[in-house]
Structure formats: structure tokens, C-alpha cells
């Protein structure tokens, strides 16, 4: 057994979730690390498309910023921001997109705009960036975020990016083409939408985590799947690759 942190477990779980996908739209931060971990382990051929306009980037280390030169230098193609959003993201060409959240509700809708009132916010967050259209247009999205009641809230202060809206049929009604969030991966476990309600259900816990602890870290009465599973621990190879990338 390997010693590893909860964040490492989260990143490894996110990387594993890319298996079987061909193309991944990458924003900054932990998603970039997970996407590059997938490339270094289970899914070497995955095409990474960065919001900054690089297609097929193969960075030796995940960069601090999604606009780092290494992404352009190692890309198959570099395109303008206009082309990236209009020709590549919007038509639904990209299989899967990673997103994070400052607040997340039970239908996996995301707030990254403000905490508090929009006109007089308690905390002004960075805002939308590419997230609304990633959430709308990718074949599926995977949300990666640390679990806490501050994040997993009963009601968003602002809806920046649509997950499953008000529940079943919402995405179709809004004309959103991708399947939306298929998985929320946290440092405690994995949540997936119940097909009947499109509300998030705890389907997996990471090793050593009790479902009750996840419920306590969630701001609404979180349902736990009857068939809840435990995430396999990170393998030695996964941890070694992750630490090489993160160093």
C-alpha cells in the first residue's frame, strides 16, 4: 500500500475517468494535472485541447498557466481564441471537458462568479471564462472539486455554468447539446447523476472515507447509492507518474 493524499486520490480518479475518451478540453489547475496524468498512464493517445487555443499539446509538465509557451510549442496546431470557441468547442467536437466550481448544487450546476449578491458581492470570484460553453458543448463534463459544505450548497448564489439545470429534460429544453456532468470527482469520492432525477448520488467513496462523512460535507441531503463502491487506491505507477508531473 502506498501513502497518498486525498488530493492525489482525487487527481488519479479524474485521470482514470478519461479512459476511453479521445479528446479532452482542458482548463487550468487540477484538471490540467489530471489530463496530463491520463496521458502519462491509461490514455496515452488522448488529445488535449487547451482553452488558450492549442490542439494536441503534449507538455512534459503541466504548466502554471494554460497560456504557457510549452503548450503551443508541443501542439499539433495553435488557433485563435475565436476559432477555438467557435470551430472546436461549440459544435460538440470535444468528447469531455473538465470543470471546477466554487459552488455546486445537487444538479451539478456551477457557480464561479460571486459569493453573495451579484451587485454587492461578499466575494468576487474570477467569473465564467470558458466554463459555460464547456459545460454546454462537450460530449460530457467531469467536475473536479474538493468536498465541503461551502462548495456543495443547497442553492447557488449565481448560476454560471449549467449542469443538469432543474433536473430531467432541462438540458434539452435549453438546447444544450452535450450530456452535461456525468461525474463529480472530489477528494472524498465520486458523485453521479441519478438518471431519474438528474440529482447527484454518491456512487463511490475513496478508500477510508465513510459515506456519512461525504454527507456531512454536502449542503443538501445527499443520496447514497445502494451499490456504493470504493475507488481502487492509486497504484504505485499512478503515484509515480503524478508526482513526476506535479514536481
Amino acid at each position: 500500500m502506498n501513502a497518498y493524499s486525498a488530493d492525489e486520490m482525487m487527481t488519479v480518479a479524474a485521470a482514470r475517468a478519461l479512459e476511453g475518451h479521445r479528446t479532452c478540453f482542458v482548463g487550468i489547475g487540477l484538471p490540467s494535472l489530471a489530463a496530463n496524468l491520463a496521458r502519462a498512464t491509461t490514455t496515452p493517445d488522448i488529445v488535449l485541447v487547451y482553452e488558450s487555443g492549442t490542439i494536441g499539446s503534449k507538455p512534459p509538465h503541466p504548466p502554471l498557466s494554460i497560456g504557457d509557451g510549452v503548450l503551443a510549442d508541443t501542439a499539433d496546431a495553435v488557433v485563435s481564441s475565436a476559432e477555438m470557441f467557435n470551430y472546436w468547442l461549440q459544435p460538440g467536437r470535444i468528447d469531455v471537458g473538465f470543470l471546477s466550481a466554487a459552488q455546486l448544487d445537487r444538479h451539478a450546476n456551477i457557480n464561479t462568479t460571486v459569493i453573495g449578491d451579484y451587485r454587492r458581492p461578499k466575494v468576487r470570484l474570477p467569473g465564467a471564462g470558458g466554463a459555460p460553453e464547456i459545460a454546454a458543448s462537450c460530449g460530457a463534463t467531469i467536475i473536479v472539486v474538493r468536498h465541503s459544505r461551502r462548495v456543495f450548497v443547497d442553492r447557488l448564489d449565481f448560476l454560471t455554468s449549467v449542469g443538469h439545470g432543474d433536473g430531467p429534460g432541462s438540458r434539452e429544453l435549453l438546447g444544450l447539446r452535450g450530456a452535461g456532468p456525468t461525474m463529480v470527482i472530489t477528494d472524498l469520492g465520486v458523485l453521479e447523476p441519478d438518471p431519474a432525477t438528474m440529482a447527484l448520488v454518491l456512487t463511490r467513496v475513496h478508500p477510508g472515507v465513510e459515506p456519512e462523512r461525504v454527507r456531512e460535507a454536502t449542503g443538501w441531503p445527499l443520496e447514497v447509492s445502494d451499490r456504493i463502491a470504493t475507488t481502487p487506491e492509486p497504484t504505485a505507477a499512478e503515484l509515480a507518474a503524478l508526482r513526476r508531473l506535479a514536481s
Partner: protein
Amino acid sequence: MAVTATLEEAVRAGVRDGDSIAMEGFTHLIPHAAAHEVIRQGRRELTLIRMTPDLIYDQLIGAGCAAKLVFSWGGNPGVGSLHRLRDAVEHDWPAPLSIEEHSHAGMVNRYVAGASGLPFAVLRGYAGTDLAKVTDSIAPVVCPFTGERLTAVSALNPDVTVIHAQRADREGNVQLWGILGAQKEAVLAAQRAIVTVEEIVDELDPRPGAILLPHWVIDWVCEVPGGAAPSYAAGYTDRDNDFYRDWDAVSRDRERFGEWITANVKERS
């Protein structure tokens, strides 16, 4: 028609109080030197337009140059918040800052419309979000063929756009490569354009991945080596990641920020 000028001359001629100004560059080629000149010249009441406000607008906002911000993602990439931006929005310091907020896709299409001489652009976007509720430059539009409901965003046509590029020739043709961002659209959408470059050369030999902005769509070209720092210019300079990390602490504190601006902007040129 491009003329060669010093940065001081170009900013004096091209940037006026109350202007709407776009300084573009997606992490790469951010025109920091030009922004510092705007601060030195004490411009006020600017409408700052930029997809990713970044440190460059954190500085302009903190220095009191801005009345309004038009943007889509306002953070310190990979580090955290823009504390001067937050202080202005959360506490009106040093002055109230009004906000016009979009997604990246919306912002870039606003530049595209501006560059194309159209009053609006169409995209799949904003459906179901609260952004359309708080931003007037977002509106529904219906496809005349399918009846499908889509989203329109109004064009951006800044009074002046400022960019940094790798090179220009003596006629003022500008060449840039690497991550391209929205620079071409921002220049073509603007009434006036100022370009700072790493160097002015006799001839622009072709470069893979490079785009060229012809001299007749640019007003001023200024040779400012390192003009993108702490951002970078591919092929010339590297990104100063430490500066970005350190900025978090500098910018958290009003006094420390003021000292930094005095020492690094106002007392330099």
C-alpha cells in the same frame, strides 16, 4: 497607417480619459509596458476591455485608471484572485468599478463582430445561466430558418486596442506567433491601434504559425523589448511565473500595492 513612435508618444496620442481600451493577449504577449505608461500618464475613467483581466488590469484598476471592466475571467492564472479587482468590486477602492461580464466565447465573439463590421454575433451560449440576466449586451436571437433560439452578443469596438507582438518591419507590418488569443480581432475592431514589439527589423521572414497585421490597420508601433513582462513573448522572453505567484501578496495589501506601483511604474519610464 502605422508610424513609429515612443511608447510615451503613442499612449499620449492614442489613449484619452474616458476611452474604452482593449489590451489583449491570452497569457502570452500581454502589453504590460504599455499599461504602465497609461498609469504614468494618469489616464482616468477608462473602460477596460479584456477576456482575462489578469495582473495587467489588476494594476490599472488599483492605480485608479478604470471606471468599468468588460471581461470574462478575472483571476491570476494558476495562482488565485486578482485582489485589486476584488477590492474595487467588493469595496469600491480606489473607486467604484462597474462590471460587464461575459463568458470567453461571448467576449471573443464580440470582438469578431467588431472586427467584421457587424453589430452583433451569434453563439450557442448563456442558455440557462444567470449571466444573461445581469449583462445587457446578451440577448436572444431566433434562427430565421430553423426557429431555434440562440444567443446574440453585441459587438465590441474599442476606442483603442493595445497589443504586444514579437516584431514589426519599418513600414509597421506586425508579426506575432505562438498563442494567438484575440489580438487580431481586437486590433481590427478598434478605432485606433497601438502595438509594442520586441524589435523592429528590416524584413519579417515568414515564421510557422505567425500571423501578420498589415501596417495600414495599425496607428503606432513602438519598440519596447520585454514589453510583455512578466508575461512572455514566444521566441524572445520567458514567463516570470514567480512574479505571478508573488503578485498575490503584493496585491493583497493596498499600501504594499501602492508602494509597488510607485517604485516600479511611476518612478520608471
